[in-house]
């Protein structure tokens, strides 16, 4: 591929009027990190395609990704286009709704070579998103940024391609469902069973209730300034406990207990 004729600029504050938002699922981050760890020794960074869909409100939902082998030197970048197309076809056999929405690269910031790659991807999809994942933790944290390209032109003459940053929404809901404890530590000895998980949740709930209790006590005794919005929130929460007559509530609870008890006994007997 020829050297780039365009220059790439990079702007950090989001001043554009576009309301484009990128939603990134945790699987994408996992994929990118895994590919980075497995990259060939001479490569400094990993480049790959992002798959997902565009939601009706314009948000780009990035759900999956795969790495594409590439060769990079000081001013040239070569991407294995056949590989990219083959993987795309394979992925679409499983999930035809996943389409290309952009590309990713590891490392902080946008480089000259990125403009070329971005141009290639803009031929595949109208407005590709460029995601950078800083695996080097250069700012002391792992920064994940997304950019779109905007053409800068003067009249009819195109001057440059500008990478504008767009906000990224990291949807960690799925990761939360699995449990961050399992995904965070380098080694987990066993997956927690139902009751252990239940215990952990109840402990968290208990801790929260204790905190709220302490806060209310502090406010009443005058140690902390009272915040009326928090107070209203707390009263709403307490009021949302349904007000049943104690007898009705007891009956409800006992019925449920009986049902669970019967099924439990049934389970034991058939064992």
């Amino acid at each position, binding site marked *: 591929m020829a050297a780039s004729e365009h220059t790439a600029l990079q702007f950090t504050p989001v001043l554009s009027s576009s309301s484009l938002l990128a939603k990134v*699922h*945790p*699987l994408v*981050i*996992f*994929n990118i*990190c*895994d*590919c*980075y*760890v497995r*990259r*060939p020794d001479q490569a400094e960074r990993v480049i790959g395609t992002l798959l997902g869909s565009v939601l009706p409100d314009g948000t780009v939902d990035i*759900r999956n990704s795969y790495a594409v*082998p590439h060769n990079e030197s000081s001013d040239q970048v070569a991407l*294995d286009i056949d*590989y990219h197309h083959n993987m795309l076809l*394979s992925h679409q*056999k499983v*999930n035809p709704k996943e389409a290309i929405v952009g590309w990713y690269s590891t490392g902080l910031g946008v480089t000259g070579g990125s403009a070329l790659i971005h141009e290639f991807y803009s031929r595949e999809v109208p407005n590709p998103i460029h995601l950078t994942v800083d695996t080097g933790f250069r700012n002391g944290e*792992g920064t994940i940024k997304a950019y779109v390209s905007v053409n800068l032109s003067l009249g009819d003459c195109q001057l440059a391609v500008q990478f504008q940053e767009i906000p990224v929404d990291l949807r*960690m*809901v799925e*990761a939360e*469902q*699995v*449990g*961050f404890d399992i*995904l*965070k530590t*380098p*080694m*987990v*000895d*066993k*997956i927690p*069973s*139902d*009751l252990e*998980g*239940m215990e952990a*949740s*109840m402990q*968290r*709930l208990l801790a*929260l209730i204790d905190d709220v209790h302490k806060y209310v006590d502090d406010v009443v005794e005058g140690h902390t300034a009272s915040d009326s919005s928090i107070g209203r929130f707390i009263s709403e929460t307490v009021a949302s*406990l349904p007000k*049943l007559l104690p007898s009705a*509530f007891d009956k409800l609870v006992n019925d*449920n*207990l009986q*049902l*669970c008890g019967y*099924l*439990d006994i*049934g*389970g*034991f007997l*058939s*064992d």
Partner: protein
Amino acid sequence: MANNSGNMARSFLQVASTEEVAPSLRVVQIEGLVILKIIKHCKEFSPALVTGQLLGLDVGSVLEVTNCFPFPIREEDEEIEADGANYQLEMMRCLREVNVDNNTVGWYQSTLLGSFQTVELIETFMNYQENIRRCVCIIYDPSRSNQGVLALKALKLSDAFMELYRSNNFTGEKLRERNLSWVDIFEEIPIKVSNSALISAFMTELEADSPITQCDYDRLQLSTNPFMERNVEFLIECMDELSMEQQKFQFYYRNLSRQQAQQQAWLQKRRSENMARKAAGEDPLPEEDPSNPIFKPIPEPSRLDSFLITNQIANFCNQINGVSGQSFNRLYLMKALQDS
């Protein structure tokens, strides 16, 4: 000098000739990446059941699963079968180019409420076992995971069962001989989860600061009735199937005893005939007659199906136990909240 080298040569030969005893599989180590991929694939297509391939390494007594890829939903068409094989080869080739472990170690499949013990599962196992020395099947249940539990299981067939299956002989005495009962068909292997340092750094950072997570919301939900209902429905269906199997066995035993009675009667008649012939000085007739239909052995129905059904029932019961345990906890919590 010559003696020494002679000794060494002998010991080398001894080493080369002793067979390596493979250590038994004790734990399956899965990467967080694989778990997320499996969850994504199974959830996207739920309630349809989907499968995929597991890739990784077989190291000593640990089976490491480092990556996986999903299979497209297969149609029953003949030409699409070839497509399926092509897809698999293509995926493995592409993944090898990005340095992913190119070694198949098993497959994963999703299940509905734990009803996965079928003959197809056993046959798939046997197919895989022919090519791979150690393979494992990971079962994921998306419906149970809505309750806040990560319902992931690693299974493999026990060796004794595999030998028996190969000989295709499931009669009662063979099973009694081997002391094999329905619990011995599948072995569940404990799962360990591992993550690379890079990804654990990212996840630690990306973890939301809120003290309570989606997982907790799922677990503390009070309505479990639909889940329990479906579990009990499945349980009832399994009981029906089990009773049908038992009826089959009763029928077989009744036929067997009737046939034996017939054989005895025929034998008596033959013996008395022979006595008469001996008295008359003629040759006695043989005491067996294979062409007589009452001597035809009746095939014993295979016990495999009833074993599998019993396994499923046990699974459902365990699930119900688990859910009721959770419900008890929740109800007591509610009671305490209300009282205060």
